[in-house]
């Protein structure tokens, strides 16, 4: 058991924990947080799997590292989009939860304006 194995197993555990939070938390912001926990786990698992190829003279394989850096930036972009969607939803309905009986009779902000 070394740092590498430990990182891979942590990644697997983080994916499971994040998935649980993503399904069971009804609060939409909590779902976004849980989704990012999954993301961190996936990156870590990928990094640990790819690190096994680092034996050839370098401290770590640069190609998967570049992939993960790209992944983190894209994950942030997606999170920012999700948060903007959540805030707009919150402005319209006044609740951070998805509801079955979502009223569709005009948004609150439109009413405020008139």
């Amino acid at each position, binding site marked *: 058991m070394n740092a590498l194995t430990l990182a891979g197993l942590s990644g697997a*555990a983080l994916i499971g924990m994040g998935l649980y939070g993503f*399904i069971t938390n009804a*609060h939409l912001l909590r779902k976004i947080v849980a989704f990012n*926990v999954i993301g961190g786990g996936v990156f870590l698992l990928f990094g640990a799997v790819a690190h096994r190829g680092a034996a*050839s003279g370098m401290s770590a394989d640069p190609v998967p590292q570049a992939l993960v850096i790209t992944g*983190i930036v894209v994950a*942030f972009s997606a999170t920012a989009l999700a948060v903007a969607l959540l805030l707009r939803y919150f402005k319209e309905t006044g609740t951070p939860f998805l509801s079955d009986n979502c009223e569709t009779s005009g948004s609150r902000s439109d009413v405020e304006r008139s």
Partner: protein
Amino acid sequence: MNVPFGFDASLAVLTLAVAGYAIAVRESFAAVIAFISYGLLLALVWVRLSAVDVALTEGAIGGGVTGALLISAAAKVGNGVADVSRPLGRVGKFFIAFLCAVITIGIAVAFLSLPESAPTLAPLAAEHLPSTGLGNPVTAVLLSYRAIDTLLESVVLVFAVVGVWTFASDHHWGGAPESPGRDRPEEPLVFLGQILPPLGILIGVHLVWTGATEPGGAFQGGTILAAAWILTMVAGLTKPPSIGGRWLRFALVGGPALFLGIGVAGFVIAKAFLAYPEGYAKAFILVIEAGVTVSIAVALGLLALGPPGRRLP
């Protein structure tokens, strides 16, 4: 690096505990704070995997800017009152936990049963490193071998900003995002807002410049510049810009446009898209990085600010 196993084990336990807290805690604000700690702990794990470039990115973007974004969102939406028309019973939660555990165990078994020797492109990356004039192989992958990925990534950030702006109400279009701080920020915050941004600018530019030979680069440096900008706005020292501003939009798309322009020029000067002429690779890469850094900083700042919410007077 000679680090006792106990350090790695406690780091792993701490990371999992903080992640678990972020999932399980009741208040969404506490969950976001735990998530930020989670990002910083993950950065430490990346250092232990000798991936310092990734660690810097995870700490700055995964923990820092994502944290700033989530904190302001948590402050706006609060905890809310759950719609309990269809609560998830104890049996249901247990069932879901069981399935998630099965997934974790499956991934762990797959990870442990991988063969010893892995395919790798590291020797190839090391072999051609001198031709790029760079010393950091990760920067070489990002801006030379796989430059197209990075070009598209910088475009993704612009698209994300466009996507966020589309959530603006019609009558706010062309205005500015709401100020992320309070109307009357506390004095310590103003003090930090004055003292930290110069340091942030210095560190950000340093990370971009040093990224050619040491860990660092446009994304890490740009994120720190964005953080310095956000801090001045939280402290009320600067106001969020109007989204219709010409300079703002130019700064936003300038980096990717420059990158694309040099890429197309590659057809003429180096016989291929995104190829650099021999001997001048490093100069071209530094010019691209400088432009992309500005655009990344502006894009990250705008993403953290959200859609326009007020009209400028």
